[in-house]
Structures are given as C-alpha cells and as structure tokens.
C-alpha cells in the first residue's frame, strides 16, 4: 500500500470510527474501550473495518514516509523554504503535516484502543484537511 492509499484508508476508517463514537457517546468523555467493542460487534461495519485494518496491516508506514519525503525533495529542488513560491509552500506545508502524523504513529509501539482515539481525534482532522492537496501529489 502506498502513501496515498494509507491516507485514504485512514480517512475512511476514521469516518467509520467517528460514526460509531457519535452513536455510542452521550456528549461526555468517550469510552474508547466501548468503541472498540462496538466496532467488533457491529456486523454492519465489522467487515469494512476488518478490510481496512487488514489493508493497513500489509502496509509499511515507513515506506509511506519515504514517499512523502521524495515529494518534499521534488518540491524543494534543492532550494531553501524561503525560495518556494506561495503555492509550493502551501503544498510543502501539507506534506510536512501528513509526514509528522505518520512519523508519530510509527513511533507508537502500542496498538490497542488508543489507535481509534488517535485516528478519530488526531489523525482524521489532519489527514482530511491535507488530503485534497497531498493525494494528488502522491499519485
């Protein structure tokens, strides 16, 4: 799975998780253990989540980071940031944010219920915002 596919899958998975959170919370603090259980017990979304996590399982976050780095190099062309055009700088901004999110995930050793919390609260908003710019750059 390449970087674009990883980002698209994370956004899709995040959407599913957010939907389950909205159905299982009453406005207070989210019980992420309950969300994980709900995902596992909901036949309507279980297959989708299984497929998407399965896709991610085969992927390599490190490879995705390298792909983003290649795009950074292609935009920079050896120039410092100050010499990028405004549009180039905005593209570079999105690549940097997406890379940072993936690098943080790479560093996380534990992968349990905190994954859903990370996906819904941290990664999804950032990746959804960056996706319109980042995905065309990665394809």
């Amino acid at each position, binding site marked *: 799975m390449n970087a674009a596919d990883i980002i698209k899958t994370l956004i899709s998975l995040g959407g599913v998780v957010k939907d389950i959170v909205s159905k299982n919370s009453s406005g207070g603090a989210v019980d992420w253990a309950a969300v994980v259980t709900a995902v596992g017990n909901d036949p309507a979304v279980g297959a989708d989540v299984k497929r998407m996590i399965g896709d*991610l399982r085969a992927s390599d*976050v490190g490879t995705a*980071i390298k792909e983003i780095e290649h795009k950074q190099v292609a935009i920079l062309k050896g120039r410092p940031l100050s010499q990028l055009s405004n549009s180039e700088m*905005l593209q570079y901004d999105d690549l940097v944010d997406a890379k940072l*999110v993936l690098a943080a995930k*790479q560093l*996380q050793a534990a992968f349990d219920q*905190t994954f859903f919390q990370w996906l819904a609260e*941290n990664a999804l908003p950032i990746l959804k915002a960056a996706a319109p710019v980042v995905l065309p750059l990665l394809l």
Partner: protein
Amino acid sequence: MKRWLGALIVGYSAAACTPAASVPDATREYAKSISEAAAAAKEDVTRCQQADKEEQRTAFCERAKKHCDVIQSTADDLAKSAK
C-alpha cells in the same frame, strides 16, 4: 471485542508500527518531522508578516498555527501512549 479485531490490531501493530523502524530510527524520524514542521511554521510566519494581501496573510498565519497544532497533538498522543 471480537477475536478477529484483536488479532488484526495486534497484527497491524506488529506489521505496520514496531518492525517498520527500530525505536531509535522512529524517534529520529519523528524528531526530524517535528523539525521540518517547525521550519515550515517559521517560514509561514515570515510570509504571513510580509504578505501584502490579506488573503495571503490569513492563509500563511493559519498554516503556521496548524503546524503548531499538529506538533502539539502528536506530542500529546505519544505522551498518552507512553504512560
């Protein structure tokens, strides 16, 4: 939790997170990414301050803030998982 979900989660952890890079390598990558985000934020602030159009000023100020927000959120996320 259904067993398959637990197995997939453990599998993803093993396949996509831990072995993809050693802890020192992943730490270096994360530190490098923060450094790049900070450098980009600094450049965005400069462009925000020097912009002669309101639209540009707003765009780059917002981008600078977003970098800071992303740095903060990833750091918070890692701090939580490290507890």
